[in-house]
C-alpha cells in the first residue's frame, strides 16, 4: 500500500523547533490602527489621559493585537503540496497586558501534524504554538493555532 503522506522530512523535523525570535515595537499608533481596523472604539486603546488614569497606566492593545505579529504560515517555510489553507482556530493564553512602549519577541514551533480525510478531501492539520515575550523577559501570551491544508476539489 503506497504511503500517501505529504509530510516531508523537513516538515517533520521542524516539530518542536522554535523559530528565531522576531521583535516588534508596540506604539500607540499601531495600537490605534489595529483598534480602528477591528472597529473597537474603546478609549483604553486610543485616549492617553483615559488610559493613564486606568489600572494599566498606559495605552494597552486589544487582546488579539498580537496577530499583527503573526509568523509566516507553515506553507511559506516548508514545502506543502496541498495549495489551499484555512485558519482552523486559535487558543490564546494571556499572562501580561501588551501596551505602548513594549517590545515583543515572537517565536513559533510546530507541535503536531495530522493527516485526515474529510469533507474537503485529504487534509493536513498543522498545529503550532507561538510564544510572545516582552522586553522585561516576561511571557505575555501563548497562541496555539491550527492551520488546515487541503486541495480544492475541481
Amino acid at each position, binding site marked *: 500500500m503506497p504511503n500517501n503522506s505529504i509530510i516531508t522530512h523537513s516538515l517533520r523535523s521542524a516539530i518542536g523547533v522554535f523559530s528565531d525570535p522576531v521583535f516588534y515595537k508596540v506604539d500607540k499608533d*499601531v495600537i490605534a*490602527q*489595529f483598534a*480602528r*481596523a*477591528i*472597529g*473597537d*472604539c*474603546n*478609549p*483604553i486603546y486610543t485616549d492617553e489621559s483615559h488610559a493613564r488614569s*486606568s*489600572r*494599566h497606566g498606559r495605552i494597552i492593545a*486589544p*487582546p*488579539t493585537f498580537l*496577530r*499583527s505579529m*503573526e509568523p509566516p504560515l507553515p506553507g511559506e517555510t516548508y514545502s506543502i503540496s496541498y495549495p*489551499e489553507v*484555512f*485558519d*482552523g*482556530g*486559535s*487558543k*490564546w*493564553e*494571556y499572562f501580561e*497586558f501588551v501596551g505602548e512602549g513594549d517590545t515583543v519577541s515572537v517565536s513559533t514551533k510546530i507541535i503536531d501534524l495530522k493527516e485526515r480525510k474529510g469533507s474537503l478531501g485529504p487534509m493536513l492539520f498543522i498545529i503550532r504554538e507561538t510564544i510572545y515575550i516582552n522586553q522585561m523577559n516576561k511571557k505575555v501570551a501563548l497562541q496555539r493555532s491550527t492551520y488546515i491544508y487541503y486541495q*480544492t*476539489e475541481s
Partner: protein
Amino acid sequence: MMTSQLYFEDVEAGDSLGPLRKDPTTRQLVMYAGVSGDFNEIHYDQEYARIHGLSNIILHGALKNAFLAQMLTDWMGDDGEIKILSVQYRAPDEPGSPVYCKGLVKTKDVVGEEHLINCDIWLENASGDITTPATVTVSLPSRTNSSTAF
C-alpha cells in the same frame, strides 16, 4: 464608549454576554489585512475566492476572534482580564451581512486570589447559525477586597 466595571459578585451562571453586533464590510477586511499582514486574497478578491471554491469573499478567522474579544472587554470593563480564549472557525462568514457575538456564563471559580468566570461564547450569522464557537476564562475584580485586588 465608556464601559462600567464588572465585579465577580455581579455575575451568575446563566448570565448572557452581548449581543455585540458587527457589520463587516469588504473595506474592513482590507483594513484588517493591512494591520494583520494576512493578505490572502480570499478576504477581498471575489474572483480569487471563487476560483478557490468559495461563493464569496470571507472574513479572516482572526477578525472574528477580535470581535469576540471586543464583546468580552466591553462586558468586563478595563479591570477584567481574559486568561484563556479558545476559538474555532467552523464556518465562513461573509462581509455585507451582520454577525452577532453572544455568550453565556457557565461557571464561577476562585483559584487562589483569582476570581474566574468561564463562559461559552460564539459568533452567529444573520441566519442564527453559529459559525465560530469559543470558550473563555476571564478574571474579574472582586468586591471582597477593599482595594482593587485581583
